[in-house]
């Protein structure tokens, strides 16, 4: 179909944006990943990934992101459910409280968590009064706390938005057919909110896999995540765009695979009629 001038001029900015900031960088990444310092084609960058402890770094990153995502989900789901039960006024207030941390720079929130979790931080000072002391900073646990805090709103919002969109008549219909509050939750609300859960996981898991700053500050560099590793090849003393690009490429492939697996479970054309969870 031939498009009119008006139609072209409307979509033009989007096309230019996509080419400049999505397609071009992807091509650059592919180019760097498969070339050596002299510009010749090579698989060396990709094969180098399977040497040293790079595989372990990948596994660590995926595991940590998975744990943080699951914790986000466990906190966010009941929170979103409770939100939908509030009066419209309180729903707005709670949404605002949830969003405010997003408006602060995440460097600041990360630094705040450092001062909270430090051996001489707020928690340990309070625990010290009763003669206790827990080492928290520079552990994987501290990194998970930081990640959960940063990304929790991105999990709550899509779940809340899908949940509050559930037709109240469906709830009444299930009560009418004998469902108790618990059964309404498990048989109606839960299956109908799966799309929200899926998009929440997508919005939280992906950035968590490639997170880098939080792990440096709260993990104290005691262990490396893939985000930190990639960063080190673009800014550190051992700059190597080619290997950094290869790492990024593999990370992207891994994320695409995980998303594919996830979307398979959220197939809207699920004709069996039974929710898959």
């Amino acid at each position, binding site marked *: 179909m031939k498009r009119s001038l008006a139609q072209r001029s409307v979509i033009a900015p989007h096309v230019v944006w996509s080419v400049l900031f999505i397609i071009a960088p992807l091509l650059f990444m592919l180019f760097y990943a498969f070339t050596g310092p002299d510009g010749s084609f090579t698989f060396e960058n990709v094969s180098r990934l399977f040497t040293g402890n790079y595989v372990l770094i990948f596994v660590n990153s995926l595991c940590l992101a998975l744990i943080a995502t699951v914790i986000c989900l466990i906190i966010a789901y009941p929170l979103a459910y409770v939100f939908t039960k509030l009066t419209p006024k309180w729903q707005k207030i709670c949404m605002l409280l949830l969003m405010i941390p997003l408006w602060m720079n995440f460097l600041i929130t990360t630094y705040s968590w450092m001062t909270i979790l430090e051996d001489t931080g707020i928690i340990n000072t309070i625990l010290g009064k009763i003669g206790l002391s827990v080492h928290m900073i520079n552990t994987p646990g501290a990194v998970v706390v930081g990640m959960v805090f940063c990304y929790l709103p991105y999990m709550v919002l899509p779940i809340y938005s899908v949940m509050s969109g559930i037709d109240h008549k469906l709830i009444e219909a299930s009560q009418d057919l004998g469902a108790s509050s618990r059964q309404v939750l498990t048989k109606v609300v839960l299956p109908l909110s799966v799309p929200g859960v899926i998009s929440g996981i997508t919005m939280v898991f992906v950035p968590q896999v490639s997170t880098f700053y939080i792990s440096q500050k709260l993990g104290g560099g005691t262990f490396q995540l893939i985000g930190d590793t990639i960063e080190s090849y673009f800014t550190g003393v051992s700059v190597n765009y080619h290997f950094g690009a290869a790492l990024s490429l593999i990370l992207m492939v891994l994320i695409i695979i995980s998303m594919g697996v996830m979307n398979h479970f959220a197939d809207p054309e699920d004709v069996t009629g*039974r929710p898959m969870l």
Partner: protein
Amino acid sequence: MENRKLIELKGICKSYDGEQVLKNIDLTVYDNEFMTLLGPSGCGKTTTLRMIGGFEAPDSGEVWFDGKMINEVPAYKRQVNTVFQRYALFPHLNVYENVAFGLRINKTPEEEVSRRVKEMLQLVNLAGFEKRHVTTLSGGQQQRVAIARALIMKPRVLLLDEPLGALDLKLRKDMQNELKNIQKRTGITFIYVTHDQEEALSMSDTVVVMNAGQILQVGRPIDIYNEPANAFVADFIGESNIVDGIMKEDYVVNLAGRDFPCVDKGFEKGQPVDVVIRPEDIDIVPAEKGMLTGKVTQVTFMGVHYEVIVDINDFLWMIQTTDFVSEGSEIGIYIEPDAFHVMPKSEWSEIFGDYSSYSMEHDLLSENTGEEEEE
């Protein structure tokens, strides 16, 4: 019909935001009857239904079911099931699982679920649709799934909230018959909410006419039509000429400037009354032989009959006739004594005049039919 009381509402009042939507409702529903709550949008009929279903609690008053007060019984423990206005089918389940929902909730064995779902789908003519996704069904099919889903629970009472409102006319007629048949076959008490008076008259054993949070009349369809309790009921059910009159004595009513013989009695002498004359009860005769004479101002062909508007002393009457008369002609009318229905004056009397705003009224009515009731 059996005369066993199944549901009783006693002095039910309900307000939303200071606005009273139910004003002291008393209603008795008998076992096995098909009862219809009929009234315009916002009259409180849906709220009344939701009280019985357990989705609304009355501010004051009592809901009784089979000899027990059930005000405190939550919806999921009541022996009633509901067919919701827009079906409210579960979009994540297929036809089979939608119908089986209630049985799964009370943990019915799988063989029984399978047998009863099959029976139900046969009852509503949806055999073979088990695996279909509900979102792929037509409105009429979704409606039948909703009915099957409620009926499979073998409720004592089935509540239906404008169940046919979203269907086109032809389908609605078919579904009316089907619903009536299902009710007869299963013997379940139906409480049916609608604003469509034809639907109410053709399906029900008992019609309850409501307006502005009050019950105006309860009776058999034929009584509601022939003996409306007041001007509102007369106007809402069918077409009617509502004329101011004075009861001269028993069997004599004065209206439009002369006395007519009628069959009503028991009013005081000289009492002002509303007189209803149905358009189909008026005969057109030559002007010189008429009880009253007037000029034809409008003739509309309706298919089976003509609707004729006649100006008699500045009061516009509607007459339904199969004989053609031409616009502008002088005609006489003749009314049998039993065609006069005399009612005492009520708070509704002043609202209804003649047919001078007839065409406007039609527009209003056709607008209203597509409207959803927001209560």
